């Protein structure tokens, strides 16, 4: 059966737990990991997997499922976290991330990990793949949707815009793009390094229905995805304003945590902050 829809508070807990899992996967022993972009998109992931999407953790290949694709594949650790939290595989397996022979690769691999629809990692290709998944659903008349999360730095890749034109040309209304607008990329602020704004105007002119939302407001995200359900004949993009490193004070809006290592002290501080938040949400 489909996962039961979670309440707002439960989704906040799930998002916080995703962040905690991400921190644990990166650890405090000098290993690097994509902390910033995983945490900026954690609330979106929680809302999609915990509330919006129809899917079956015990049967990942279930034909009537909605599908999620992280076009910015480097944030896959957040997806591994939610998949583990919801039971696609054991939470203990998260510890094997990037280990030789692990099912949890540095970037998503559909041949290895349950719940991964297609490989991403070479940036700018996920939206095209999402179009293909959505067209296959249309042919099969499943009535389901594809959700594809992109980064605001990633959309410098030209193929995103080829895909954006294709989504509009084929009137793919069972596709929802999410733009994780955290305003930072690997080497600095997106507007300084390579400006991809103005985003709403660009997507609108490409024939998309545009919704802007606070990417950390669970209720706003639910409303955005519900609004997307009402849009027919064109694709929808939710431009989610987010904070890179959200939920971990020392990492928020800090470029170094795009793909950085935490010191032992930072690691412990991050866990303490997230544990405090979890306790608050439990109470």
């Amino acid at each position, binding site marked *: 059966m489909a996962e039961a829809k979670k309440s707002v508070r439960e989704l906040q807990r799930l998002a916080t737990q995703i962040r905690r899992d991400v921190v644990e996967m990166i650890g405090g022993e000098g290993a690097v990991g994509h902390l910033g972009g995983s945490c900026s998109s954690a609330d979106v992931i929680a809302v999609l997997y915990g509330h919006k999407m129809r899917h079956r953790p015990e049967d990942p290949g279930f034909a009537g499922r909605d599908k999620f694709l992280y076009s910015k594949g480097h944030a896959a650790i957040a997806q591994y976290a939610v998949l583990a939290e919801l039971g696609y595989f054991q939470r203990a397996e998260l510890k094997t991330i990037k280990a030789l022979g692990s099912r949890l690769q540095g970037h998503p691999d559909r041949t290895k990990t349950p719940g991964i629809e297609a490989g991403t990692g070479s940036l700018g290709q996920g939206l*095209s793949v999402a179009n293909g*998944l959505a067209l296959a*659903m249309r042919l099969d008349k499943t009535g389901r949707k594809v959700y594809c999360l992109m980064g605001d730095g990633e959309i410098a890749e030209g193929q995103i815009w080829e895909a954006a034109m*294709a989504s509009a040309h084929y009137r793919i209304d069972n596709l929802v793009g999410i733009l994780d607008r955290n305003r930072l990329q690997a080497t600095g602020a997106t507007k300084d390094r390579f400006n991809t704004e103005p985003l709403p105007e660009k997507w609108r002119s490409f024939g998309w229905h545009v919704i802007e939302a606070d990417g950390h407001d669970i209720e706003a995200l639910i409303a955005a995805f519900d609004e997307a359900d009402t849009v027919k004949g064109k694709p929808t993009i939710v431009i989610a304003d987010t904070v890179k490193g959200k939920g971990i004070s020392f990492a928020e809006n800090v470029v170094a945590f795009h793909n950085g290592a935490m010191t032992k002290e930072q690691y412990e501080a991050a866990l303490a902050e997230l544990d405090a938040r979890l306790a608050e949400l439990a109470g």
Partner: protein
Amino acid sequence: MNKTQNSQRTAYGEELVALGREDPNVVALEADLGKSTMSYLFGEAFPERYFEMGIAEQNMMSTAAGLAAGGKTAFASTFAVFAFGRPYDQIRQTISIGRLNVKICGSSAGLSDFGDGSTHQAIEDVAVMSAIPNMTVFTPCDAAETRKAVRAAAAIEGPVYIRVCRNPVTDYTKADDVFEPGKLRVLREGGDVALIAHGVMVDAAMDAAEALSARGISAKVINAATMKPFDYEGCARLCEGLRAVVTAEEHTFIGGLASAVALALRGRGTPMDFVAIMDEFGQSAHSANELYEHYGLTASAIEQKAAALLGV
């Protein structure tokens, strides 16, 4: 011998339609060259399952990947040079790592798009596609074999690259011949020298065998319709006891048939030579034959190399 000729690309389009009729999961994508690749025939038969992706090959390949991940068998076609090069990353990252059922038709391959020149002549496609793990590479020699390659591609789990010529090619295989992916096939028996070829060079190899026969040399002609996985063992077996081996391909000598046969025969001491494009690009000409002559991709070149190896 009376030669008949047929079009590989018409065979591609027609077989795709036949396949689509049998299997509703077959879809096709094109990048504005459907009238050349002949995939438009599929579009006319099954408009719902045919996706014109515009002049955007990278997007086409990734969309094909998505369709395949969604359970479809996706055939994506365009000129070979735009099918393997421009979307290389898309083919590698999502399609091949993901072992997705995307079947890529590289049409107008080799020098066969004679007029358009080097930008449109894929002379390294077999090498590049063969280098990708999980990829299968078919290089059919005629129209009937192209049909079988399309069938075989659909039956294989994972990505396939099919190399197709623009111009009509001589018929050497028959509709009821068995096409075994991954196997070399003897088209003409002989006991002195093996001539191993694929694609349009099979015709040249057959002509060379005829010319060698007139000189008292018995040539075995072997068709290499699968370049990957290459039949290394079969190659060594078929060449056993022969005094020389010559390969012939409409492709750079780097990473193609010459390389594969050299690997297959390593350590055996069989004298070997090759006919191929050297490390250079093509150019425009008024006919494909003019280019084949210029780059030495001819029956007489094969004959001369074989005779030289045999010391006659």
